[in-house]
């Protein structure tokens, strides 16, 4: 059994559904955190600690309108949140959130202020904020200005501006990505409202744009067509440096890794993809499949391989993924009641987010739950022959990804690997596969052979109990099922001939003693493993006792010889076999003596359905049909009556004739007539007679005429049909 190639845990029969309900989802509104947040990088907590710790509550702050985006000041103390009706600067500490400035005070309801995106400047522009509006306006706000803070309104884009971005080092250059397909660069030192550069992606709307954090003259943009482009501002030609067709459907967000060469992108096709922008590879390094369209992503600072994402619709969670383990999120924050629209890492352990539910939140990684903790890590399943397959999680400790076996995006090992791979072609696994042990064990708990022999040969009719019991006992004896044989004998004694002497019954039960012993020894030697022989020994012990009871009670019963006494014994028998989970015996026993015993309908239905199910599993259709027909319960009998389809195969090419139901007379595949008469070559409607030897045939009349004079097949196939000629009708 090879390890699951996608690194997921095998889930055979057992359901390992993902349960997104939080351990502690007490969502009261608090403006101060219950526990002081720990931002000292201590993040690998054992699940026990998380359970015992008081439930962590994120900081919440409610705003008067739905929020679209947020951005923190360079020092992380202030956060600006923006929405259609809101533009506020909040003061955020570890304890509480307070409003600092409301930038919309006194401003009328101008469309310029309904913001799609907001960014806080840096360095030279650390007191400035840029907002992008749906009508194409970009507004620069200056927090140092007294009175109205509006510094400048740029309205050069003809359609909505989707994203703005400050150049990381200087802070003077602002990039804007617009629905009109243009990316424009603005120099904020120049008060004239004209774009310094305009980059036309020659693609549809630009959804996201971001500066490279290391090489600040480079930027990447994500487009509605699903492509991402890398541009170099030093290049004066109006053409991109590199273009990757990344997503199937629009690309909605891009984010540079801090190493300056790795770029992540997210799109409507529900994937996050990681690209090496320096290589020529057209395939992503990593692909993470999420549950919904990805609207924003950001790498986790301080953790090279972790990336946070939020959805566009239908998923309210904020997920942190490890690129090396793409099938399950490492952390999930599930606090918002609608989809988060914007988020940002404040530090490597703190994340701030906003959503249309009007809440601004500050989360700590301690407050996130780990979806992996909710998953079952071991799987088990078996087939009908008693083979058991299992897989056991072997990952050591609590580490989400083994750092040694799977180097990350930027680890020096991976860099070296990447370089060496080009020369040697040696592949190192990029994806973490949790170590597992898989195995198959054969447990001889169920004897298929005996079961099928019994199923096919047992007499199930109750018309002649004596005969039925005798045959069944013989069959059981020949299959070395001595206990079953004994049972049949006892039943025979009880029901077939109640006037029989008690001595024979005693003899029989004495035999039972001996045979039971034999049975045990046989079982013991046959058993493959030690544990199995133990269980069979234990069973043997039970058998002894049971037989003891049985024999004594049966001898008693013969003395009293009353119907009710028989009923009691049979009940004991049946419950014994039920406990042994031998439904075959239960059902057959019941069918043979059903005139004399009463069994609860529910119990009966249980036996029958499980026995029929077993028969179906072993493909013993005929036996199953017999049992179904013999069953006294209406519900079971109707199984045979629904959805029985009979299909006809073409007698020339042996393909299924699809239009059987509509009485087609020709095969769809080979276009030959179905069942033509060998003599007149017409389709036979009505009685068709054919030779079982050569499969040729035709109209009954024609065949009779032909074979009255000839002995060979009329088609000339050379088969001598007359000896085996059997005239069966086929409609």
């Amino acid at each position, binding site marked *: 059994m090879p390890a699951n190639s996608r690194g997921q845990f095998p889930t055979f029969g057992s359901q390992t559904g993902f349960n997104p309900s939080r351990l502690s989802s007490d969502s009261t509104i608090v403006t101060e955190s219950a526990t002081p947040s720990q931002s000292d990088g201590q993040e690998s907590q054992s699940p026990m600690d998380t359970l015992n710790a008081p439930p962590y509550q994120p900081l919440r702050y409610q705003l008067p309108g*739905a929020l679209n985006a947020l951005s923190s000041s360079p020092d992380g103390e202030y956060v600006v949140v923006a929405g259609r009706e809101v533009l506020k600067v909040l003061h955020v500490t570890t304890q509480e959130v307070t409003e600092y400035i409301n930038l919309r005070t006194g401003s009328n309801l101008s469309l310029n202020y309904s913001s799609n995106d907001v960014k806080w400047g840096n360095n030279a522009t650390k007191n400035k904020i840029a907002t992008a509006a749906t009508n194409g306006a970009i507004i620069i706000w200056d927090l140092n200005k007294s009175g109205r803070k509006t510094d400048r309104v740029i309205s050069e884009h003809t359609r909505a501006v989707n994203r703005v971005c400050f150049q990381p080092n200087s802070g003077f250059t602002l990039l804007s990505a617009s629905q009109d397909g243009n990316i424009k660069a603005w120099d904020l030192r120049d008060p004239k409202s004209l774009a310094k550069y305009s980059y036309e992606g020659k693609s*549809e709307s630009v959804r996201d744009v971001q500066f490279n954090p290391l090489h600040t003259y480079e930027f990447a943009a994500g487009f509605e*067509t699903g492509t991402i482009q890398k541009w170099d501002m030093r290049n004066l030609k109006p053409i991109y440096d590199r273009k990757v067709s990344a997503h199937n459907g629009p690309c909605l967000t891009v984010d540079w890794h801090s190493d300056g060469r790795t770029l992540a992108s997210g799109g409507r096709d529900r994937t996050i993809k990681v690209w090496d922008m320096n290589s020529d590879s057209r395939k992503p390094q990593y692909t993470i499949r999420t549950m919904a369209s990805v609207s924003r992503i950001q790498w986790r600072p301080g953790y090279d391989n972790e990336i946070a994402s939020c959805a566009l619709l239908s998923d309210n969670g904020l997920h942190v993924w490890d690129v090396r383990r793409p099938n399950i999120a490492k952390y999930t924050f599930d606090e918002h009641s609608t989809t988060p629209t914007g988020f940002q890492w404040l530090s490597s352990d703190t994340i701030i987010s906003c959503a249309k539910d009007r809440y601004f939140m500050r989360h700590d990684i301690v407050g996130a739950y780990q979806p992996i903790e909710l998953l079952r890590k071991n799987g088990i399943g078996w087939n009908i022959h008693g083979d058991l397959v299992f897989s056991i999680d072997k990952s050591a400790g609590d580490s989400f990804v083994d750092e040694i076996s799977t180097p990350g995006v930027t680890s020096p090992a991976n860099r070296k690997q990447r370089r060496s791979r080009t020369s040697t072609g040696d592949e190192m696994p990029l994806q973490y596969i949790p170590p597992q042990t898989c195995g198959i064990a054969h447990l001889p708990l169920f004897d298929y052979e005996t079961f099928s022999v019994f199923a096919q040969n047992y007499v199930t009719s109750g018309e002649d109990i004596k005969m039925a019991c005798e045959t069944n006992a013989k069959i059981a004896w020949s299959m070395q099922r001595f206990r079953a044989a004994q049972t049949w004998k006892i039943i025979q004694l009880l029901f077939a001939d109640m006037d029989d002497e008690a001595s024979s019954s005693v003899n029989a039960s004495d035999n039972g003693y001996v045979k039971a012993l034999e049975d045990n020894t046989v079982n013991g030697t046959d058993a493959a493993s030690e544990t199995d022989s133990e269980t069979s020994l234990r069973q043997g012990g039970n058998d002894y006792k049971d037989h003891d009871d049985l024999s004594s009670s049966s001898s008693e019963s013969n003395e009293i010889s009353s119907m009710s006494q028989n009923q009691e014994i049979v009940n004991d028998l049946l419950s014994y076999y039920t406990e042994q989970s031998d439904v075959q015996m239960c059902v057959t026993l019941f069918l043979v003596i059903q005139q004399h015993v009463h069994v609860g309908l529910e119990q009966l239905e249980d036996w029958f359905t499980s026995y029929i199910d077993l028969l179906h599993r072993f493909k013993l259709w005929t036996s199953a049909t017999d049992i179904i027909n013999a069953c006294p319960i209406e519900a079971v009998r109707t199984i045979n009556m629904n959805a029985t389809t009979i299909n006809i195969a073409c007698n020339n090419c042996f393909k299924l004739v699809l239009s059987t139901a509509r009485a087609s007379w020709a095969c769809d595949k080979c276009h030959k007539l179905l069942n033509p008469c060998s003599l007149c070559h017409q389709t036979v409607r009505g009685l068709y007679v054919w030779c079982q030897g050569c499969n040729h045939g035709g109209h009954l009349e024609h065949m009779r005429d032909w074979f009255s004079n000839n002995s060979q097949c009329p088609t000339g196939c050379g088969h001598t049909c007359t000896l085996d000629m059997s005239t069966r009708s086929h409609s």
Partner: protein
Amino acid sequence: MEYDDYRYQTDNGSESGQETTTGHKPRILLMGLQRSGKSSIQRVVFNKMPPNDTLYLESTTKIQKEDVTRSFIDFQVWDFPGQINFFETAYDSQEIFGEVGALIFVIDAQDDYREAVNRLHYTVTSAYRVNPNITFEVLIHKVDGLSDDYKIDTQRDIQQRTADALADAQMEHIQLSYYLTSIYDHSIYEAFSKIIQKLIRELPTLENLLNVLCSNSGIDKAYLFDTLTKIYIATDSSPVDMQSYEICSDMIDVIIDIECIYGAQNSASNGTTPSINDVEEDRSATLSSPSLSVGNGGVNGFGGADSLQEQLMSDTSVASEPEAEASSLIKLTNGDVLYLREVNRLLVLICILRQESFEKHGLIDYNFQCFKEAITDVFEFSNTRNKLNSQLADGNELVNNTSE
């Protein structure tokens, strides 16, 4: 909204169109190899043919021209036979490609597409030489049944081959857009929506209007649909999510179906009698509907629409209007509301909003009225401008004629 009203006049010859405004009407050319699905696309999108019936379409032998003139959509679709090379000297390529707005090249993704890619390269370069203003759209078609990985691989491969070929021909500045489509789902409608949006000059204005409407009414997403083709001619600037698009376009189907059964007769539309209203209100009660199975995949994302509440009402308050506007409301179990309003006989506005926002029903209706007036203004303006342009062009032609 009577279904028959929407049947286009299909004029087989281009002569009749020529007389009116064909000279300035953008063309959409459907090209590609034989059996790649051009006619199927044209029939499914513009003639409402059920996708399964396209199996029986005969192969096209001559150029099929069809005028599509409705409100903002105003162009001509030319369906080309795949087996003929129209760049041969026997054909007047200037005549064919001179006025083209968009050239759609269809590639069968389930087939070996190398030949198609060669043909695409040839078509693009030849057409570009004739008319450099054409926008080239490539439909990687018949992707139903392909796995997601295979789809993106195919797209990447086709894109790369074409880009390499164009680069070799020194024409890498030609911009091609690629779409993965299938007639069995909504992807073909979405692709056509995007293609057609590029041809609509008023798009930025419409988008802005929708943005304003959305932000002032608390609407999450709004689409302006062309009723018959289910093409959205504009939407607000937030990203289009496939689920929301699918559910909205399914809603149109539901509304049209109900309209066909219960709607007022078109001849009697000027007198919206109270009796009709009664009937419609009765229906809203009877149709709280498990029978309305809206959507297939899209609905699931919205939390299941098994308890859709359907209300169709006739808005009689605008008595001055000769036709009553249809409107419809579907509440989804996840708390979202789908709200449809008819803008005019050809356009409907469908909004998705949260239940909380929908409490301000009056505000939304008022905003909608403003929006509708604005749309009408834009439409009238563009109409007069078109007329002016055509007059100008006619004038130019006259001048040319006299000079000759």
